[in-house]
């Protein structure tokens, strides 16, 4: 094994993802989609997919292309496929958003964009699945973090399959009764597979590893994290497979959703205990900004679990599903994503620029690439605005939600400016930090070393 090199296109994935995040926040601030429109309105669906595919899925794909090889200590199966995959995903997302605009009546055409969107997204995700799947398949036994990623990838298959069925039925290209039955009732399963299985499982697996790595805590390989893996996997299987079985039998999905919900709460409780242990067992006393801000994402995740329980207890769950989903997407997944990007971009950029000359000349530290003091306030604003927005959704206070969304967008733009400054080495003022052999990084592409 000759180790891991830099994934060439990961920065392009991150850049595209961040553009879609800004777009989604701008739409929310402008009052597009939920809560100004109903939860199942095409406008809301457009917004949700802009976040789930455009921002979060591209972010997770970019991160996995770089870190799956690190986790399994094997090179990525293929270094060329990530670019076409990215292009297919962006084209597919554009088609999907266009399809929703057609549904909303924003524009009309005598053909539906949904079949095109389905084909392009399936191809893009298929290329990612093939590449990561082949990388994982070469390794036995799989380390814990890689097993989480494996379950996430299987969930991605389920998400795309269900989503494709919906899209094709919306595009009126299928008339199979079973497919139409799925299209009319399986939306909760699509959401669980996508947000719970694909995005959250990948985030959990990678966070186990990255938290241990960046806080110098012991790697968790014991019984409890395996319990999290098993309970979470069973929860997903019960919800998705059980839900499909109930659907085929013309029964209500509720038993599957309830059983899956209880199992996943148990898994989340154990995951929370693991994460607390990692923070306590760390040997680095000073926490970097990325780990500090990850803690707020984890708090949001815990708050979402408690909120779900409380809403279920008050029998208000289905009425407040929008607020709950918002908290999971923005408090947990987006918060975690931005916090980890803050470290990952600095680390990868440092390695790309200074790796070839390490030891031969004095080089800046990774932390010299970031200006944590400048970024900290914007992260606080981001989380505060996200929590206010969640409260506004719970209270059906639409204007407050839009103001909070505008604040989230402002904070995100400021954080992105910090990320760009890190990537372009603009926080390094010492000219001696650019010895011979060090090249300025490209914003979007990692150039493997050629020392």
């Amino acid at each position, binding site marked *: *094994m*000759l*180790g*891991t*090199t830099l994934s060439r296109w990961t920065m392009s994935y991150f850049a595209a993802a961040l553009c879609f995040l800004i777009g989604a926040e701008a739409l929310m601030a402008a009052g597009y989609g939920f809560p100004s429109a109903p939860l199942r309105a095409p406008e809301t669906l457009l917004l949700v997919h802009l976040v789930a595919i455009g921002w979060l899925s591209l972010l997770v794909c970019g991160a996995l292309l770089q870190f799956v*090889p*690190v986790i399994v*200590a094997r090179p990525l199966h293929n270094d060329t496929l990530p670019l076409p995959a990215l292009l297919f995903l962006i084209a597919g997302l554009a088609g999907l958003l266009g399809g929703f605009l057609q549904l909303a009546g924003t524009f009309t055409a005598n053909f539906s964009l949904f079949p095109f969107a389905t084909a392009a997204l399936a191809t893009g995700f298929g290329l990612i699945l093939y590449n990561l799947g082949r990388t994982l398949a070469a*390794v*036995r*036994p799989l380390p814990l973090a890689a097993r989480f990623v494996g379950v996430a990838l299987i969930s991605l298959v389920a998400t795309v399959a269900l989503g494709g069925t919906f899209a094709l039925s919306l595009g009126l290209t299928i008339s199979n009764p079973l497919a139409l039955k799925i299209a009319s009732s399986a939306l909760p399963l699509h959401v669980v597979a996508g947000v719970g299985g694909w995005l959250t499982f990948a985030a959990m697996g990678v966070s186990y590893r990255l938290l241990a*790595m*960046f806080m*110098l805590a*012991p*790697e968790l390989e014991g019984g409890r994290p395996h319990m999290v893996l098993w309970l979470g996997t069973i929860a997903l299987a019960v919800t998705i497979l059980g839900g499909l079985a109930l659907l085929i039998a013309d029964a209500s999905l509720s038993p599957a959703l309830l059983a899956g919900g209880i199992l996943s709460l148990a898994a989340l409780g154990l995951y929370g205990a693991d994460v607390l242990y990692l923070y306590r067992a760390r*040997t*680095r006393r000073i926490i970097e900004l990325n780990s500090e801000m990850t803690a707020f994402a984890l708090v949001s995740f815990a708050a979402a679990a408690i909120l779900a329980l409380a809403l279920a207890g008050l029998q208000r769950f289905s009425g407040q599903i929008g607020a709950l989903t918002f908290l999971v997407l923005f408090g947990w997944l987006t918060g975690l994503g931005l916090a980890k990007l803050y470290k990952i971009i600095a*680390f990868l950029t*440092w*390695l790309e620029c200074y*790796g*070839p000359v*390490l*030891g*031969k000349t004095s*080089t800046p*530290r*990774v932390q010299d690439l970031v200006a944590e003091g400048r970024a900290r306030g914007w992260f606080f604003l981001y989380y505060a605005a996200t929590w206010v927005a969640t409260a506004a959704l719970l209270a059906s206070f639409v204007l407050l939600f839009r103001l909070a969304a505008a604040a989230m967008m402002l904070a995100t733009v400021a954080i992105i400016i910090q990320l760009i400054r890190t990537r372009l080495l603009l926080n390094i003022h010492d000219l001696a930090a650019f010895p011979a052999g060090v090249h300025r990084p490209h914003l979007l592409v990692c150039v493997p*070393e*050629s*020392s």
Partner: protein
Amino acid sequence: MTQSYVDLDVRPILRDGGEPFGKIMEAVAALGQDQGLRLYATFKPVPLFGVLEAKGFTHEAKEIGGGDWEVLFRRSGTPVKREAETAPATSTAGWPDPVQQMDNRDLEPPEPMVRILSALETMEAGEVLSALLRREPMFLFPQLAKRGHTWRGGLEPDGINYKILIRVGRPPDTAA
């Protein structure tokens, strides 16, 4: 059992500062059942020995002058089962005792890598560095390979710490 050899000369790639590993593995994958590989390199490609041993190849290396090496990889028919954590060099037999020992377990990444690479720059070819780490240093290996060092690493018996021995070599691009 091997009848014929397929020749592969990676010296031009190495002299251009490139990484021939992918090319070599492609060539190996394309070998027939009765074929072996004759590899030409600008240094003794010790890291490769372990990789190909795991695929069931034995090796025979000889220096052919000018610092270049010719290595014959022959099918032994029995792939050697290796620990997942074992890094490239097949054996440290014949390696001198480490002249430097480092404990990098309490350093934040990437400080362990920086310390190791800095120390290696001060050492003579053939000398060995020993370092204790918290995990397999995935981003260090390409740097070691590029600089012509050989290494062997693995988990300590405690199953937690990772120990790597690195023998200083000549950078491949200056060997020509």
